[in-house]
């Protein structure tokens, strides 16, 4: 059965190489975990699109089912769910995130 919210999420995921579902905006994050994730992407110099789930309750609920992941933020790269704040922080601190993104063909301006 098709789910219109999941269809909306899927089209955003397909249209954006690096897509972050977050609370607030990159300039004004509304949650510490979202802020930390933006900080990591910014440090690496990754261009990304952000979707503020606080502005869209359907997406806020829908993304949790879509990804089978209970929390926000959530990062998608080239259509693949990479993880939330903890996983990104772990990859970043292990110097795995930049190679992962580079392998996906994402441009890192600060690499």
């Amino acid at each position, binding site marked *: 059965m098709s789910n219109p919210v999941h269809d909306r999420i899927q089209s955003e995921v397909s249209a954006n190489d690096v897509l972050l579902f977050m609370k607030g905006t990159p300039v004004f994050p509304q949650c510490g975990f979202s802020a930390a994730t933006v900080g990591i992407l910014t440090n690496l110099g990754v261009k990304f699109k952000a979707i503020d789930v606080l502005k869209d309750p359907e997406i806020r609920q829908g993304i949790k089912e879509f990804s089978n*992941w*209970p*929390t926000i933020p959530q990062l998608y790269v080239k259509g693949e*769910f990479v*993880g*939330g*704040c*903890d996983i990104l922080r*772990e990859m970043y601190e292990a110097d795995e995130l930049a190679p992962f993104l580079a392998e996906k063909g994402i441009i890192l301006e600060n690499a």
Partner: protein
Amino acid sequence: MPMSATEIETMIRQAFPDADVTMTALADDNDHWSAMVTSSAFKGKSRVQQHQMVYAALQGRMGGVLHALSLQTAAKD
């Protein structure tokens, strides 16, 4: 009501009986926790899968009553 570290740890141990669970308070409010979970059940699983397994063990509480659990997982032999 936020969940206590003991409740979180108990639920994780029920799902992963061999798990080593280390709970650390991130704030002095009995609400913000960090959990390090090591279990043989994680062998061969991606990080995303490992975290999904722990979230499943918490039976829907993550993202609800439990909004601020920072999680780290690792496989053990």
